[in-house]
């Protein structure tokens, strides 16, 4: 059942980040970008759905993808804290996206060599998508960081707000290491330096400072979330909670 827990973990981050991006649909600053961000949300939710389907199969019985996505308790969600942070302005949303995309890009490259064929196949399918996501979010971080004085200032604020949530992306816990031991995930140790190098490169191009490592928040992987999380779940789970057992 360890693998089941692990697959849920992989599903939760794209679910919660995708849910956040859904809030933008129809409210973006530029019509073309509204469409582009919805595309990313569709990819993230699609990936999480593939993973929840697999998790439901691992669990067996009558459990469905929607039971797993919509009816767990807050403490059972293992997404990174950064995924649940408020959208804020367009720049904050894209910086949050960028930090996650860089992680996800290297993580999925590691996962595609998984000894678990199903996970390897899911990773392979998503690599094309995340490659595009990372390019898109990088471009926006650069454009806004190096845009106007106002946009630069807003990106500094976003960086300050989000940076403490980036540590979690490259910290591995017992479950991660156990999965590595049995080959479900490979070469985790490479990810921290890959992530850091890419982030340094893009923040540099964006004329944004590289923050000190500093104090990092954690808790996502053990299900201790920020206060934002309860509201996301209240909204996301509303129908499943109000009409238990109904089919939609």
């Amino acid at each position, binding site marked *: 059942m360890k693998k089941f827990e692990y697959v849920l973990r992989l599903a939760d981050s794209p679910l919660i980040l995708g849910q956040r991006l859904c809030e933008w649909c*129809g409210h973006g600053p*530029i019509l073309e970008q509204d469409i582009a961000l919805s595309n990313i949300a569709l990819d993230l939710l699609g990936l999480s759905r593939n993973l929840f389907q697999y998790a439901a199969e691992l669990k067996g019985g009558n459990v469905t993808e929607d039971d797993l996505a919509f009816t767990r308790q807050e403490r059972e969600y293992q997404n990174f804290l950064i995924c649940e942070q408020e959208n804020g302005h*367009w720049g904050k949303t894209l910086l949050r996206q960028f930090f996650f995309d860089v992680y996800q890009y290297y993580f999925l490259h590691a996962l595609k060599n998984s000894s678990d064929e199903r996970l390897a196949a899911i990773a392979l399918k998503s690599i094309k998508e995340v490659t595009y996501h990372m390019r898109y979010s990088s471009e926006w971080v650069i454009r806004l960081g*190096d845009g106007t004085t*106002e946009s630069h200032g807003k990106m500094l604020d976003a960086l300050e707000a989000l940076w403490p949530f980036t540590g979690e992306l490259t910290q591995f816990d017992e479950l991660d290491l156990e999965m590595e031991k049995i080959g479900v995930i490979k070469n985790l140790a490479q990810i921290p330096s890959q992530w850091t190098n890419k982030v340094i490169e893009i923040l540099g191009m964006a004329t944004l400072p590289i923050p000190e490592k500093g104090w990092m928040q954690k808790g996502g992987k053990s299900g201790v979330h920020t206060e934002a999380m309860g509201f996301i779940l209240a909204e996301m789970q509303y129908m499943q909670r109000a009409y238990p057992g*109904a089919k*939609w």
Partner: protein
Amino acid sequence: MDIKSLQDRFQEKVDAEIKIEPRDWMPDDYRKTLIRQISQHAHSEIVGMLPEGNWITRAPSLRRKLGLLAKVQDEAGHGLYLYSACETLGVERDDLFQQLNSGKAKYSSIFNYPTVTWADIGTVGWLVDGAAIMNQVPLCRCSYGPYARAMVRVCKEESFHQRQGFEILLTLSKGTEDQKAMLQDAVNRWWWPALMMFGPNDADSPHTARSMNWKIKRFTNDELRQKFVDVCVAQAEILNVTLPDPDLKFNEETGHYDFGAIDWDEFWAVVKGNGPCNKQRLVARNKAHDEGAWVREAAIAFAEKKKQREMAVAS
């Protein structure tokens, strides 16, 4: 060439079903009519994202969330094609946004109604996208080339939306008592506004004849409305819902369904800004536009810097 012969040649082309293209001569009123109609249509797509977007974060399953998000994203795409078609007539998208945000431009009144339950999402797909298709399929043959071509793409996606909406409702119709009640309630609220989507009765629609002569319009409002009613009756039976009209009844003589009188006072009240959500829709559009200003400015500033740098490297 004098105006009269230009006009004659224009009308000959229209009559011969030859498309009018952006560079061709066209009467001023034809251009104005098209700009008004296409921009209203574009605005409708964009404002239409709001009532449906309202449910994306609350959609009841992963599959429904993906389906709804993709649909609302399609509507943004429709807006984009239509603004582009409008730009071929010599207006800028920014000016059109200005007209929308200031409340000067109109958009389809249907989007001033609230989506209050999940069943509304299915009903909007079934009835609102359904009525849109009725209106828009003939526009694929519109005399103005860019509009006609945009509509071909739009209609393909709208019919997918309509089926998706119907399927949401079909699922409810086979569900629990709560779900069936939710379905009937949504149909009760959306039926009449959907019929209003075809616009005033022909007798009160002074521009119809001219638009038909220009082959912008192919059918009158009442003709399209009748077609829609006829199609919906059969579909309502499959869904096991009652359409909220005691006068709805098949007429053996005409071969069509007769239906009750539309409440035109309500229609005009909503058109004039007094619908349940007119104000919220404009507030949301203005908020997105205003809060996005710094993003658009930064994008322009960055593009300019990049160009300067590339020129500096090149020289």
